[in-house]
């Protein structure tokens, strides 16, 4: 499995296309959303968590839709399927790679987010980061599965968001809630149920994805 992850990281390292798209689109979304709110209004601070997660989701969907593009070239998907590995392992490796890319983009977007929305930098940042990690993991788990499916359908650009957005609603709600509470300096214990929800989501869909992936790629 490590070989698979290494391969994806190598490819990305060479082209940096996915990372760049993730970064730029995330940034762009934040900028546009910033225009939706008056810079001085109270609403801004309240809306900030929502804006962050919208940026994560929009950029993430794009990144995910690209995640199986390398396999489209030279029929590499068949090359992968010829390897003596379980299909589930291929899924997990892709998911980890996608997670890594999205988190890397977040490392850059995070500070900009704080910047744009004039938020106070407090100790709760660790909690926000944790919620981001859990959320992105769940997103990657479901997203990788459906990215594999939609890469071979028509109207690929439409299908992936159509499929993904309803399914990741729990992650989105939980993420926004947690980020909001933490930015309002609430203690970590308060948001524990939400974090548990996200963790549960992650575990459940990693397992489901692992079990079902072979049907997504066979012919």
């Amino acid at each position, binding site marked *: 499995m*490590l070989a698979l992850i290494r*391969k994806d990281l190598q490819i990305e390292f060479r082209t940096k296309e996915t990372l760049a798209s993730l970064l730029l689109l995330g940034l762009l979304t934040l900028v546009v959303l910033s225009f939706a709110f008056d810079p001085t209004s109270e609403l801004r601070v309240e809306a900030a968590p929502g804006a962050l997660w919208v940026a994560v989701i929009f950029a993430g969907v794009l990144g995910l839709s690209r995640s199986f593009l390398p396999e489209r*070239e*030279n029929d590499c998907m068949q*090359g992968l399927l*010829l390897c*003596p590995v379980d299909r589930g392992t291929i899924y997990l490796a892709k998911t980890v790679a996608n997670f890594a890319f999205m988190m890397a983009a977040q490392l850059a977007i995070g500070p900009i987010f704080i910047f744009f929305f004039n938020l106070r930098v407090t100790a709760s940042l660790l909690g926000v980061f944790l919620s981001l990690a859990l959320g992105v993991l769940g997103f990657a788990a479901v997203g990788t599965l459906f990215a594999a499916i939609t890469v071979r359908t028509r109207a690929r650009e439409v299908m992936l968001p159509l499929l993904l957005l309803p399914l990741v609603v729990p992650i989105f709600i939980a993420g926004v809630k947690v980020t909001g509470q933490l930015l309002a300096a609430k203690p970590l214990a308060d948001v524990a149920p939400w974090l548990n929800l996200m963790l549960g989501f992650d575990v459940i869909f990693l397992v489901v994805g692992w079990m079902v992936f072979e049907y997504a790629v066979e*012919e």
Partner: protein
Amino acid sequence: MADAVIEARGVARRFAGITALHGVDLSVHAGEAVALFGPNGAGKTTFLRILATLLRPSAGTVRLFGQAVADGGAAARRRIGLLSHQSFLYPDLTPTQNLEFYARMFGAPLARVRELLVQVDLLGWAHRPVRTLSRGLEQRCALARALLHEPDLLLLDEPFTGLDVDAAAMLTGMLRAAHARGTAILMTTHDIGRGFAVCSRAAILVRGRMMWNGPIAEAQRDAFDETWTAAVRGRERARPVRG
């Protein structure tokens, strides 16, 4: 009698209402080299993919290395090498990176990568992305990929198509070497000359049915020619055979 590396019985495959294969039988034993001839659309590629565990047959059984394909076929795949029209190489990575990746995936020692790069004469280009290589060079790298893990069974899908004279000679040489080592070879082609040069047995697949199957010995030449001509012209006079 050597062990059967492939034993396919009654293999059928349907796609969206079209039947690509109608109950095909074929046996390949260790150390044998079999050429599978057939006109375009005969179902050769489909059959090969089923044997490589990439596709599941709609009916029939396939036994590889003496065992039924089970648990997704990972164990069988470790001993199979497939060479197809597509190279299965990631264009953004270098040949070295590609081969190292496949070596890790197949559990082959990394030293093999260099060994094979030397064999296919690709050392000079080993550090440039595959997308910058010419088609011929890419195919050589694909050949290296297929042989990397010293498979016991080599499946080749029209391997001589589009190869220049040098590359074709290289391929023939490597195939002969593999054959000498005891690797079983199943090669599809519509180039009779090449097929006869490398292999000791032949079979003809036409429109999903196995029409002829036997050793390439002089005595059989006439029956073979007749069946082949008829097949190419679209009229089968022979009945389907069991292999």
